């Protein structure tokens, strides 16, 4: 097997002596859409925060395209290509949707202070390119018509799409999403599913943390199932669905082999 894009290697994390994530190993191949599912309290969000850099990794390693990232702060990981979409509406209030997307480009631009202050030609060209790529990203997630609206005025589904656009502006190698379908209406879910299909076709690698099993299993190449902090199953959606341990974890009964 070739080197995976993302390797989570023996990662554990405890809150006050209780393990939320325990010795988790996950390899995500280039171009893969990986779903990470599990019942409440399985450690999904903890894993999301460990990979994104919102929580410090104390045990284990996280490797992105051959580079250890687990000791790096979140902003350095973003610059190495980890794009993050939160479940909550973590958008930039007081800015328009377009400006929100433009901020995302900070992960790839240097953002030189001198260039900005003296309005150097190179800065003006960069600024045009950022605006252009932000418009494209908004169009990609279906927000072309919302560009000049204040970000906080967008409905929840659009705010999440805006986070995707913002992440895309940073040209991520890996897009990490925490329960992207949570709280969305049926039509919004369908739109989100179509967006994932499109992003996958374009070659983007995605890790989708999801509580809603039906939503992701029809999109994912492979599914990792967490329960009580451990990986209890991994494979194609069909094999995972048939796995008795998974059924047991979701139904909360004992394991019957």
């Amino acid at each position, binding site marked *: 097997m070739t080197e995976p894009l993302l390797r989570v290697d023996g990662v554990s994390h405890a809150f006050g002596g209780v393990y939320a994530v325990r010795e988790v190993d996950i390899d995500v191949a280039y171009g893969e859409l990986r779903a990470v599912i599990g019942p409440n309290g399985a450690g999904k969000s903890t894993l999301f925060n460990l990979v994104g850099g919102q929580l410090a990794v104390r045990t284990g390693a996280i490797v992105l395209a051959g580079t250890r990232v687990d000791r790096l702060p979140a902003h350095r990981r*973003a610059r190495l290509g980890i794009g993050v979409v939160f479940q909550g509406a973590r958008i*930039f*209030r007081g*800015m328009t949707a377009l400006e929100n997307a*433009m901020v995302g480009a900070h992960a790839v631009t240097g953002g030189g*202070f001198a260039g900005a202050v003296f309005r150097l030609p190179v800065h003006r060209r960069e600024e045009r390119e950022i605006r252009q790529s932000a418009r494209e990203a908004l169009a990609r997630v279906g927000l072309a018509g919302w560009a000049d609206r204040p970000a906080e005025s967008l409905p929840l589904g659009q705010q999440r799409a805006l986070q995707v656009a913002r992440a895309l502006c940073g040209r991520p190698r890996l897009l990490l999403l925490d329960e992207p379908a949570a709280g969305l209406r049926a039509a919004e879910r369908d739109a989100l599913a179509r967006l994932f299909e499109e992003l996958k076709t374009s070659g983007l690698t995605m890790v989708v943390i999801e509580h809603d099993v039906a939503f992701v299993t029809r999109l994912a190449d492979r599914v990792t199932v967490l329960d009580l902090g451990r990986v209890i199953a991994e494979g194609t959606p069909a094999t995972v669905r048939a796995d008795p341990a998974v059924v047991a974890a979701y139904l909360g009964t004992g394991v019957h082999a």
Partner: protein
Amino acid sequence: MREFLQYLITGVGSGCVFALVGSGLVVVHRVTRVVNFAQGSFAVIAAMTASTLLASGLPHGLAEASAVAVGAGAGLLVGLVAIGRPGTPPGASLIITLGLAVFAYAVEVLIWGDQPRSFAGVPGAVEFGGVRFQAHYLLIIGATAVVFAGTAALFARTDIGRALSACASNPYAARVVGIDIVRMGLLSFGIGGALGGLAGVLVTPIQLVTFDYDVTLIVGGFAAAVFGGLMRPLHTLVGGLLLGVAQSFVAGYGNAAYQMEVALVLLLAVMMRQAARAPAAEQEPA
């Protein structure tokens, strides 16, 4: 009428200085949520530095510019101490800036003594509407206009400006788009230092500056900044001008001893009105 115009012009001049100090407070607060009580010290340090450099023979312009750079450096230093350690709560940082402002007195007295300093500004006088006033006022007004336009453009139209605003709006989300929020915070302190420094070198030719002049500046600047909820630069400019003109009229038609009281009353009135209106829209907890 001539008196009115005279008071108006001097009021606008000192109002510009308050607005500059206030905008330094706003830039730092927008990005870091810290109220920087050392903001007035940057002005005093820059004023003293400029007077020393001019006395040692450096030409006008170069001396003032160097002094503003020293102000920016002082800002960066205060920033390093106040927010350099990631995770310092804004309240703790505020107390640190207050402590550093007091510490700055000791440094200033040690280097420059406790005597007031001054140096010449733009020479000559200008006549306008039958009133003669120092040409230096034109420099103060012009420089303030340029600085406010420039800061507005920086925040609205540059990547670095958007990154600075993003820190203020949602530090949690700012990190995941690759923004180093500590570095942005330090940058804001540097900009604040430069703005304070500029206020200092502009005010010295029309006002003697002593080591404790920062109190006057921080009270006036804070009143101006609060006018814009410590967030909006343009409101800060308006607030600063209103304060400067109000003080000038009180001093001109009434008693010059009440200038500080004017600032404090304005500050109190604005704060009470804002507190009554609504709890300000806050960022979501990170």
